[in-house]
Structures are given as C-alpha cells and as structure tokens.
C-alpha cells in the first residue's frame, strides 16, 4: 500500500519535472518563434546561465523549487478529497477537474456538486468519495452498513410493537407516529444499499482518487478522538484543531505563499522600475523630491497600516497583494534601479539614442533597462523570501488572507495555542517555511554568483 503511494508520488514528481523543465521551455521558445520573436539568447546571458548551472546547489534548488511550484498549480489533482474521475452506472463525473477549472474561472458560478443519492450513497449532501473508494476496494462495507441499518430497524419495530396506551398524551402519540414514518425511509435506504452493492459487484462503479485523498478545506470531525490529531498513518502530519489535514494545508499553503510572493514581486518590480528609472534618469530635483517621498513612505510602519486597513475591510488575496505592493513591495527595487540608471545614462549608447531622437520613455525602457537587468534578477529571490516572510507574519497575527485559506501563518498561530501538547502544529509549518525559503535563498545566492561574480584575490 505504502509502496504503491511512493511509486505514484515518484511518477508524479518525474512527470512534473519533465513538464516544467522540458515541455514548458520548448513550448515557450516555439510560441515565441511562431509569433516572430527572436528567441535566441544574447551571448552574455547564455554565459551567465551556463555559469549558473555550474553552481550545483543553486541549480538543483532551482529545479526542485520550480518543479514543485508548477506542480502545485495542479494540486487539486494530487491532494484533494474529490476524485479525478468517478463512474457509477451511466453517471460519469470529473469532480477534481471541475474544482480546478472552477478556481481558474473564478468569475463563473461553480458547478453543482455530485449528490450522494446519485452515486449509491445514503444522504442528501455531497458524495463521500473516500467512502466510495473504500467500498470499491472492500464490498463488505455494504454488509456492515446494512447490518447497522437492520439493527436500527429491528429496534424501531420492537418499540412499535408496544401500542400506545389509550390514555396516551398527545406527545406520546406524536412520537409513535414519527417512529412509524421512519420505517419506510430506512427500508428505502436498505434497498438503495443493496442496489449499490449489486452495482459495485457488477463492476459498474469506478473511481480514481488523488494520491493524497484529503482536502485542506474539509473538517474531519468523525475521526476517533478530538482534533488536533498527532501525525499518523492516514494523516501524514496529523490534523489541526478544526480537524483539517495538516499536510494538505502545508502543500496548498506552499502554493498560496509562492504565487503571492511571485505576484507581489512582479507588480513591485513594475512600479519600482518606473519610479527608480525616473529618479535615476532625470536626477536633480525629481530625484531629491522622490527620494524624500520614499524616505517618508518607507518610514511608515507598513505592518501597522496593513493591520488598520485589514480590520476595516476583510482582505482578499488581490487586496492584500496590492496593499503589500503599494506599501512595501516597490521600495527596495527602486533604489537598485535608480543606481543602475544613474550609471548607465552617461554611456555613449544612451547619448546615441537621444541624438537619434528617441523619446525619453523609449530611452529608459528600451535602451537603459535591458542593460540594468542584473540587479533585478539577483534581487528577485530575496524579494520572494521577504514577501513570504511578511505573508506568514500577517497570517500569524490574523490579519492576512481570508479565513479558510490554507496558510502556514495560520497553522503557526494555532500551534502557539497548543505549544506544549501538539508540537507538530508549529514544527511542520516552520520546517516547510525554512526549507522553501532556504532553497529560494540558495537559488538567489547562485544567481548572484553567476550574474555578478565577485573574485576575491588575496595573498596567502
């Protein structure tokens, strides 16, 4: 059983790696070429990339972290309580795929869920897919269910055998009538069970569950004992105090953190490049005024501002992204860009471009910017590290992403409550955070080394 899971995981990881590092790059190059762009790298960039690849620890960290991130975009297919595919009689459905596309097309109303009655289960809410899969493997589940129902019906019949006394109160009469009404319901359930059993036996039911069949948004309250649960066989890293699987939260939290940091970095870069470029290119009073402004802006305790705003409106993913970008994300990079533009603007090619009548915007963005990319690239991993840190601390304080979003900070906050008795609630998110950020830092260090090499010569 465990071996099978390991093999499945290994296959998934390999597929993820091939997709991320073989299929995606070639797709990128091919579409670019088809659109008429020159997709060949400039020689000095080729050299830098080659140098980056020779720094093994950074290169492998890069491979791992990008593979994991690209795979995490498809997490609904791997860690979910909904199956990839389910068939019952003539009904076929792809619940995990539906969930994934619903998230992608978030502006559309989500698809209706599969009801239990349509898939041979008793009840009127969503299908319990794990139960379905278990029954598929072990049909005796039906027998034990049926036995329980039969015991219940037997008990009711025994109670019904005693007719109410002629002088019974209205309440007693009502109870008796209620019991009478339950009987046909249970009989119908028994019939449904038998029908489902025969369907399963005839091979008309099929299901394909994800590798890790738990979702970060479900509360597993019917487990024995009270949540939080310690790590065990079913739940690799246990559950939190609302009975939600910790491992599922961790992997979804990885996706949230990484995509959050990426979006914040990219948007922050856009603003930072424009502001820093204007400061460096125009210099003089523009520079002085903007510098004053940035000094003031950077001195505002941004975490406090975020908290004040967050207590006013419930922050959504997008609102939080824009707030962090506006308050903090663009400041660091604008300094770097300002310095680069200061240095580059006195170069001959800039004068040449100006002399040929290029507009100021085009001199800045088309001529100077491509020559000042090195600090941008080397700064990026560290910007990601910083943003993830901010997100985790915000979530930890309870002013981060909306409640219910799987996140590392929320787990840490919970862990603080159970510091003494449930260390896994602290240790697992901390280790996930440390490992992720460590790999990003390794990438950043290698990129810096490869793009901006510093040779130390010393006399021994």
């Amino acid at each position, binding site marked *: 059983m465990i071996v099978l899971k390991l093999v499945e995981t290994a296959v998934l990881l390999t597929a993820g790696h091939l997709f991320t590092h073989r299929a995606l790059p070639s797709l990128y190059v091919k579409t670019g070429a088809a659109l008429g762009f020159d997709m060949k790298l400039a020689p000095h960039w080729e050299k830098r990339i080659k140098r980056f690849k020779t720094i093994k620890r950074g290169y492998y960290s890069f491979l791992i972290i990008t593979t994991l991130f690209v795979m995490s975009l498809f997490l609904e297919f791997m860690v979910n309580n909904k199956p990839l595919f389910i068939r019952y009689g003539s009904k076929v459905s792809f619940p995990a795929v539906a969930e994934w596309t619903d998230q992608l097309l978030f502006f559309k109303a989500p698809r209706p869920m599969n009801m239990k009655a349509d898939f041979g289960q008793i009840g009127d809410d969503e299908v319990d897919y794990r139960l379905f899969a278990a029954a598929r493997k072990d049909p005796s589940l039906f027998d034990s269910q049926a036995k329980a129902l039969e015991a219940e019906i037997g008990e009711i019949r025994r109670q019904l055998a005693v007719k109410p006394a002629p002088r019974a109160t209205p309440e007693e009469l009502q109870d008796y009538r209620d019991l009478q009404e339950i009987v046909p319901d249970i009989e119908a359930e028994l019939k449904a069970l038998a029908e489902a059993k025969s369907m399963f036996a005839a091979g008309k039911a099929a299901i394909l569950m994800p590798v890790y069949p738990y979702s970060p948004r479900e509360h597993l309250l019917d487990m024995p004992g009270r949540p939080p649960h310690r790590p065990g066989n079913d739940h690799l890293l246990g559950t939190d105090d609302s009975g939600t699987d910790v491992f599922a939260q961790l992997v979804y939290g990885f996706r949230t953190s990484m995509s959050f940091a990426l979006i914040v970095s990219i948007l922050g870069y856009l603003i930072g490049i424009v502001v820093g470029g204007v400061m460096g290119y125009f210099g003089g009073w523009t520079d002085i005024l903007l510098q*004053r402004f940035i000094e003031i802006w950077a001195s505002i305790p941004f975490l406090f501002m975020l908290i004040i705003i967050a207590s006013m409106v419930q922050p959504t993913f997008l609102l939080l992204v824009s707030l962090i970008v506006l308050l903090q994300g663009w400041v660091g990079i604008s300094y770097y860009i300002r310095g680069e533009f200061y240095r580059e603007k006195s170069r001959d090619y800039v004068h040449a471009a100006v002399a040929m009548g290029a507009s100021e915007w085009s001199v800045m963005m088309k001529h100077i910017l491509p020559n000042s990319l090195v600090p941008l690239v080397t700064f990026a991993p560290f910007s990601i590290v910083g943003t993830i840190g901010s997100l985790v601390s915000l979530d930890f304080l309870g002013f981060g992403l909306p409640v219910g979003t799987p996140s590392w900070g929320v787990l840490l906050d919970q862990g603080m409550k159970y510091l003494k008795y449930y260390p896994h609630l602290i240790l697992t998110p901390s280790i996930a*955070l440390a490992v992720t950020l460590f790999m990003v830092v390794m990438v950043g260090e290698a990129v810096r080394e490869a793009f901006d090499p510093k040779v*130390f010569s010393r006399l021994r």
Partner: protein
Amino acid sequence: MHGMITYFIRRLLLIPVTFIAITFLVYFMLRVVPGGPIEQAQLQIKMAMMGEGGSSGMASEQGELQIPAAAMAELKKYYHLDKSIPEGYARWLWGICRLDFGRSYVYSEPVLDVIISKFPVSIYFGLIGYFASWLICVPLGVTKAIRHKSGYDTATSIIVFLGYSIPGFVACLMLMVLLGGGSYLDILPLGGFRSENWAQLGFFAKIADQLRHTAIPVLGYVMGGFATMTILMKNSLLDNLGADYVRTAFAKGLSENRVLFVHAMRNSLIPMTVGIGHALGLLFAGSFLIEKTCNIQGMGLLSFNSVIQRDYPVILGTLVFLVLIRLMGNIFSDVVWALIDPRIRFGK
C-alpha cells in the same frame, strides 16, 4: 570637514520636515479609517442595550442606534476628535512639542508614562540582542573569510542561509517547542520576562531565572540580522585582504595574525556600523512579532496592541519615538561612519 558639518546640519534640519510628513500621514489615516474609538463606544453601548433586553433592546433593533447629539459631542471632545483633521493634527503636534502626548484611551494614563513603563524591557532585550549578534557574527565572518571556500566556509554558509530563511519569531516558536517543555526537552520557560516568583528567589537563582527567560527572545533578535551581518563582515574582510595595503604589510614581513587583526580587521569593521541606525530603532521599538510570541510586555507589543485597540494617542506616541529614533539613527550612523573612516566625505 567644514562641508561635512553643514551637510549634517542640513540633514538635521530635514528631520522635522520628514517627521511632520510621516506623522501627518498616519494621523490622517487614523482619522479617515472607520472603526475608531467613537464607533467602538457606539458598539459597546449597543451591546449593553442588547444585553439588557426588554423594551430598550427592541427599540434598538427597530432603528439604527442613535447617540444623542449632545453625548456624541461630549464623546468626540473626550477623544479629541471634535476638531477638523488639520486643526486636530496641529493641536496634537503642539502637544508633542510640550511633551504632552495625550492620555491613552485604554490605560487611561498619560501616553508618556505608558511608553516609559515599557521601555526598559525592550531596551534590555534589544541591547543584549545587538551585542550578541556582534559577538556571534564578527568571529564567524572573520573565520569564514580566512578559510574562504573551505569545507568550514560551506558548512557555516548553510547555517547562515538557514538563519536568513527563518524569520526570528518562527525560530522562537520552534525553540519554545523543542526546549520549552511538553514534548521534548524542558530547559527553558515559555516566554515572559521573569518568573512569577522572581521576588522570592535568591540572588543567583534570580540571575539564572533572568538568563533563562532571555535566551529564546535574544536568539530571535540575533536571527534578524545574523545572515546580513556575517556575510557583510566576511565580504568586507575579503575585500580588504585583497587590497594593496595588506600586500604591503605582508611584504614588510609582518605575521599573518598581525596583518589580519591589526590592519585588515580595523577597516573591515567600518561597513558593519552602517546598521547602527536600524539597530537603534529595533533596540527601542522591539520586534513586536518576537515580543508577541515570547510574551514580553515591551514597546513592540504595546504599539501592536494599541493598533488593535485603536488607542490613537498611543499609536501616535510610539510612532513619534520610532520615527525620531530611526531618522536620528540614520544620521548618527553616517556621523560614526565619517568619524572612523577618513575616506568618507559626505556632502560633496
């Protein structure tokens, strides 16, 4: 030298401008954002009336609760919110100039007293943390530079990068789980400044108790600047080791230790002082994340709680200290820098 003095004077003169801009921005935000003390008072009255039940509760359900205009004006006056934003700000600023920070809504004490009562704890942890990071980072950076590209260098680099990737408060949490009793070792207490029975302890027991409470938060503080300081130390020493004057010193026939510690070290320590301004800010303001995780009642936690409780005078009061310290700290670190490194000339 003359040019430098005017340069620093000009920078000092800029402090009030920046200070006013920052505080006005925050004051403006606080006044504009809903959920202030008036609304909270309204909410409390509403809750109280709902709690009473009966007829008054029914009345408040039917219409939006209206506080009588007179009471409202009284309330606004009490919270100093009866003036327009510019006038209110001017009054507040005038108060600051006379060291009158107003009264805290929550503690109903003068803000200055509240802040001063929290100061010592923050300074205690901040100072120890700052010296501890020098004590750890300088030797580590120096040995890393001497054995550049050796196995030792790689191994310690891993530790340094790990330190960079774990936020200080997360490290505190992990240490509390591992060392604070419960599942693993039971060596250190779970936060707090001192034990409750501190007063009854003997002299040595007092010291031991204080140290035990200091260990985890200080480690969190150290983690904050650990990686940057170590790498800065290493790189600046490496830079200097490649410089001509080091070559000359070697050529004179000086021993390696003498060249290293007398010549190169002195110059390599200069860039380390750049962080003093920032460190000063941390020293006084504390890191509220660490103070929250370790349950230390310092400045950081005070300002965090004041934001949550909308204690406007305290928010603004701590902001005053934070901004002034940071602005002065930046200038201070530049002055220090210019004093110890005669090559640095500002204002040219």
